[in-house]
C-alpha cells in the first residue's frame, strides 16, 4: 500500500495601507479594506470557488477515496466571513464529507514561532477556537507559517497536544533519507510529515513552464511518477499553496482539468490510496528521528527564513513589533491587540524582502507596495502610531 497525502494551504493577509509619516498620530486605520477586498474577490472567483467545487466533486465521484487536507488562516477566514460567506460555506461542505482534514497553525500566519513563545501559543489557540467555531472540529495536526520548523517549534506543538507537524522535506535535513516515510522529531513523540518538494513543485511551480522538459504535465504522466514510488516509500506528501489552482496557475494553463483528472488516474493503481495526516498516523510507524537545529521552511532555494528576516529592515521591523508585546498585552485593549496581531502576519515582512527585488519575481505577487523600501516605511510608520496609541492608553490608566 502507498498513500498520497494531498494538502493545500490557503491564506490572505490584511494588507496595510500606504502610510506616511504625516499620518502618525492622526490615522489609526492601518489596513486597506478596499484593496484587500479587491484581491480577495479576484482569488475567490479565480481559485476558491472553482477549486472547492472540483475537490467536492472528486470526493463524491470517488466515493470518498480521494482525500484532501486544508489549512485556512484566521486572517483569511475573517475576511471571507465578512465579504464572501459563500466561500466559507463551500469549505464547510468539504470538511463535512469527512474526507477533508483541517490542519492547525497560527491564526495570523505569523512568525511568532521564531520569537515569542507565549504569543505563538496564544495564536495557535485562537486558530483552534476559530476552526472549532466555523467547522466544528479541533485539528490534531499542526503546520507552522511557511512550514517553518525547528526543534523548539516541534516541542511547543507537542506540548500543545498536536500529534504531528507538516514540514519541508529539505535535502539538508534528510540527507540520504527519503521524504516518503513518516518521521519523529528529535527526542520527541510528535510525528513529522515531510513535503516531497519535487513532486509538489512539479504542479505548484512547473505546471505551466513551457521550457520545462516535462511540459505539458498530464494526469497520466503525473500518476505514473507517483505510482513509481511503490516499494520505495509509504506516503507521498504533496503540499502546496491552495492558490496554485487558478491563481498561481491560471485556468487557461489547464490546471483545473489536471486537478479533475490526476486523482482518479492515480487511483487506478490498486495499491494507491489517498490519506490525511491523522489517518496515516494510525497506520504508519515513524522510520527515524529528524533533527531541526535551525529553522527550515518551504521557501526559496535557501529553505530558511531569509525571505522574511534576511535584511536589516525586516529584522528591525520584527524586533520593533515584538518590543510592543508587553505593553500591548498589559493595557488589554482589544482593538490595539488586534492591530498588533494583524501586523504580525508574515506577508508584511515578505514584502520587505530585497533578495531578488531587481529581477522582479514571485515576491511581487499580490504585493501592494511599490518596493521593499516602501513596504518598510509604511509598516514602521504604522508601528510608531500604534506605539503612540499604546502610550496614550498607558498614561490614561496611570
Amino acid at each position: 500500500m502507498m498513500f498520497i497525502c494531498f494538502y493545500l494551504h490557503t491564506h490572505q493577509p490584511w494588507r496595510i495601507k500606504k502610510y506616511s509619516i504625516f499620518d502618525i498620530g492622526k490615522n489609526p486605520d492601518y489596513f486597506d479594506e478596499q484593496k484587500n477586498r479587491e484581491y480577495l474577490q479576484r482569488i475567490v472567483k479565480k481559485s476558491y470557488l472553482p477549486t472547492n467545487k472540483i475537490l467536492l466533486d472528486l470526493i463524491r465521484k470517488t466515493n470518498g477515496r480521494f482525500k484532501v487536507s486544508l489549512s485556512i488562516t484566521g486572517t483569511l477566514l475573517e475576511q471571507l466571513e465578512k465579504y464572501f460567506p459563500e466561500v466559507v460555506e463551500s469549505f464547510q461542505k468539504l470538511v463535512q464529507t469527512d474526507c477533508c482534514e483541517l490542519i492547525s497553525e497560527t491564526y495570523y500566519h505569523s512568525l511568532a514561532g521564531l520569537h515569542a513563545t507565549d504569543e505563538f501559543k496564544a495564536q495557535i489557540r485562537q486558530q483552534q477556537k476559530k476552526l472549532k467555531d466555523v467547522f466544528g472540529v479541533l485539528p490534531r495536526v499542526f503546520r507552522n507559517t511557511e512550514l517553518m520548523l525547528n526543534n523548539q517549534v516541534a516541542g511547543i506543538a507537542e506540548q500543545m497536544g498536536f500529534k504531528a507537524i507538516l514540514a519541508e522535506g529539505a535535502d539538508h535535513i534528510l540527507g540520504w533519507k527519503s521524504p516518503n516515510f513518516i518521521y519523529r522529531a528529535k527526542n520527541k513523540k510528535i510525528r513529522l510529515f515531510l513535503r516531497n518538494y519535487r513532486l509538489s513543485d512539479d504542479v505548484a511551480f512547473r505546471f505551466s513552464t513551457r521550457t520545462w522538459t516535462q511540459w505539458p504535465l498530464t494526469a497520466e504522466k503525473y500518476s505514473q511518477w507517483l505510482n513509481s514510488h511503490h516499494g520505495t516509500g509509504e506516503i507521498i506528501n504533496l503540499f502546496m499553496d491552495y492558490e496554485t489552482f487558478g491563481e498561481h496557475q491560471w485556468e487557461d494553463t489547464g490546471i483545473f482539468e489536471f486537478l479533475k483528472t490526476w486523482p482518479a488516474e492515480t487511483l487506478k493503481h490498486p495499491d494507491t490510496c489517498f490519506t490525511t495526516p491523522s489517518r496515516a498516523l494510525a497506520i504508519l510507524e515513524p522510520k527515524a528521528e529528524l533533527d531541526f537545529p535551525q529553522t527550515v521552511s518551504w521557501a526559496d532555494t535557501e529553505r530558511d527564513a531569509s525571505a522574511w528576516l534576511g535584511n536589516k529592515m525586516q529584522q528591525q521591523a520584527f524586533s520593533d513589533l515584538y518590543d510592543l508585546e508587553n505593553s500591548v498585552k498589559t493595557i488589554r485593549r482589544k482593538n490595539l491587540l488586534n492591530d498588533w496581531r494583524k501586523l504580525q502576519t508574515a506577508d508584511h515582512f515578505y514584502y520587505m524582502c530585497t533578495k531578488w527585488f531587481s529581477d522582479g519575481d514571485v515576491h511581487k505577487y499580490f504585493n501592494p507596495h511599490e518596493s521593499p523600501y516602501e513596504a518598510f516605511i509604511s509598516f514602521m510608520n504604522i508601528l510608531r502610531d500604534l506605539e503612540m496609541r499604546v502610550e496614550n492608553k498607558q498614561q490614561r490608566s496611570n
Partner: protein
Amino acid sequence: MKVLMFGWELPPFNSGGLGVACYGLAKALSQKGVEIVFVLPQKTDVRMPFAKIIFALSEENESLLRFSAYEQPRARACGKNPENLHCFTLFNLVEKYKQAAKIIARKETFDLIHAHDWLAFPAGLEAKKISKKPLVVHVHATELDRVGNQGPNQYVWDIEKNVMEKADRIIAVSNFTKNKIVNDYGIGPEKIRVVHNGIEPAEPQSASELLGAKGKNKMVLFVGRITLQKGPDYFLTAAKKILEKNPEVIFVMAGSGDMEKQVIEKAVELGIAKKVFFAGFLRGGDLAGTFRAADVFVMPSVSEPFGIAPLEALQYGVPVIISRQSGVSEILSHCLKVDFWDTDQMANQILACLKYPALHQTLRANGETEARGITWNNSAEECINVYNEILSTKI
C-alpha cells in the same frame, strides 16, 4: 570600426552631464576596439588619450573664426576683438560648428557619424551630407526637458526635429526620452534605440571637509542646475514639510542656474532660509566631500532624460530618492521613487530615511551594489549593436 563623433563639451570644461556622458561612452567604446575621432567646437584643455580630438573652430579653420559682414556690427557692439569666440552667440556657434563639420568630414575617414544633442546635430548632419555615411544622433536631452515642458525655443526644436528625421538611427538615453521623441517630435519608434547611460567608477578624491554648518544635523542633498527642469522648488516645498517634523535637518543645494534667485527668495518666503545652503557649482574634492556628508540625496526633476547624479550619490554610499519622471528610474530599483509634484510623499520618504537606520543602511548597501553594475561598458556594447545594425543594412 571608426566613428566620427561630434560633441559639445568634455570634462572638466563641462556645464553638466552631457560632457560626462560623452567621455564615458567614448572611452568604453574605444576599449571595445572602436576607433574614435572626437570633435569639439572650441579648443579647451581636455584630455582624451583614447581618442583623436579635433577642435572644429581652431586656427586650421581660420576663416570660420571671422565674423561675416553681417555679423560684424554685433561683434563690434560687444566691444571685443571680432575674432574672439566669446562674442558669438550660442546659435552663431552652432552654425560655425556646422560649417566646420564640412571641412572635417572631407578630411577624415570614418564608417559612421555619431552626434550628441542638438548643439552638435547640425554638424553631424552636415558631415553625413558630405560623406554619405550613416548618422546616429544621441539624444541626452530634448528642448522640452530643458524648459521643463514649457514653451520650447523654436530654433532649437526645429534643429532637433529636422536632424532626428534625417538621422539613420536615434539613440535615446531612456524609454522616457524615447517616448518624448515619438510623441512630441513625431518620429517613428522603429529607428529609435534606447541605450541607458553608465557611470565611471568614482575616482578617489581627497574630499574637502565640508560644512561646519552640518553639526549634529542630518543633511539632505540636491545636486544639479538650479533650473525649472531639475525641480529645485519642489525640493524646497518638501524641505519645509520636513522641518515641521524634524528641525535638525539641513538642505544643501549644489549647482547654479537661472532659477537661483527665485529659489533663494522662495526659501526666505517659506521661512527656512537658515536651513538651506546654496553651495554653487561644485567639482572634484568639493563635490566628493558634499556627497560624503549627505545623509540622503534627492533628485526631484520635472523631466530628466537620464540623471547621472543619483548614481554618483550611490557610489558615495548615499541613499537616493529620485523622481519617477526620469530615465534613471527605469534601471534603478534600490532607491525610493516619487512623482516630482508629490512633495508630501517626498518629505515622507526623506524623513523615513533619516528616521529609520535600517532603511538607510539597506538602501545604501543595495544601491551601491546596483550602481556598480551600471557601467559604460554595457552602454558601449548596446551602442555597437546599433552601429552594426546600420552598417549591415547599408551594405
